[in-house]
């Protein structure tokens, strides 16, 4: 039982983080908070991949004398790419927030919606 829980603990926490991020994105109106939520979701996906790539008693995939068990290098490569792309998309989202603030004077979704309706 303990072994089953430890074998799935990482995945459950990752799902919890994923859902926390998702909840922030769909339930909050403030755009900076939404982007923080989106980033939490993103990091949880990174954790999921790295957890899947981990091998018990393995070491980092750098070939060295005296080690035979290495963790899977492929998820690491994919997530390296994803982290950098994630920052690029975050910066684009934040630039949009700055522009929205200039155009509407607010970054709250409800107020932007009201302004659009009253036009």
């Amino acid at each position, binding site marked *: 039982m303990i072994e089953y829980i430890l074998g*799935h603990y990482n995945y459950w926490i990752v799902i919890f983080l994923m859902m926390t991020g998702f909840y922030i994105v769909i339930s909050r109106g403030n755009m*900076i908070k939404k982007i923080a939520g989106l980033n*939490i979701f993103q*990091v949880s996906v*990174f954790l999921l991949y*790295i957890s899947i790539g981990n091998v018990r008693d393995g070491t980092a995939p750098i*070939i060295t004398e005296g080690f035979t068990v290495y963790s899977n290098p492929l998820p*690491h490569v994919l997530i390296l*790419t994803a982290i950098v792309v994630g920052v690029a998309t975050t910066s684009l989202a934040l630039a949009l927030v700055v522009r929205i603030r200039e155009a509407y004077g607010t970054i709250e979704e409800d107020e932007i919606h009201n302004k659009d309706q009253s036009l």
Partner: protein
Amino acid sequence: MIDTILDVTLLAFIAVTAIAILRLRNLFAIIMLFGIFSLLSAGLFVVLDAADVAFTEAAVGAGISTVLLLATLALTKEHEEKIPSHRPWLPLLVVLVTGAALIYGTLDIAPFGSASAPAQTHVAPLYLEQGMAQTGVPNVVTGVLASYRGFDTLGEVTVIFTAGIAVLLLIGGRRRENQTRKEKE
């Protein structure tokens, strides 16, 4: 054993930080907690044997993302998140249903750390056995990133370039327009 303890503790910390980000309304505090969140996950990546990912997450996730968020906060001059007017029952329901479906999906997944999991038996052994001989780089992650999946990295650079141009178009042009308008006045 120590790996398991660190893994469990760090994941618990990360979960608590995420709850704090959800509950707080002060945007500055949210951004700082997000930096802590990124740094904790970078620590967890080290425990999970992903040293390269940990470097990148600490530098890019905890560093650059936090700075960008702070810069946005400075430009928008917002401090507090306003309380949403409607009750969040529908989002809560969506999140609970999705979460339950995902948990159901993990019930028969290969346990964490298993060496015989499908993810560990496909191309990874090939990279580990032949990567050193074929690319000459002892760090297999670098070898795969720059050599086997080089086009993937080229695509990544394209995405960053596109995002950079888009940010410049969105913010850079606007600033200059404001200046010329002021000069005319």
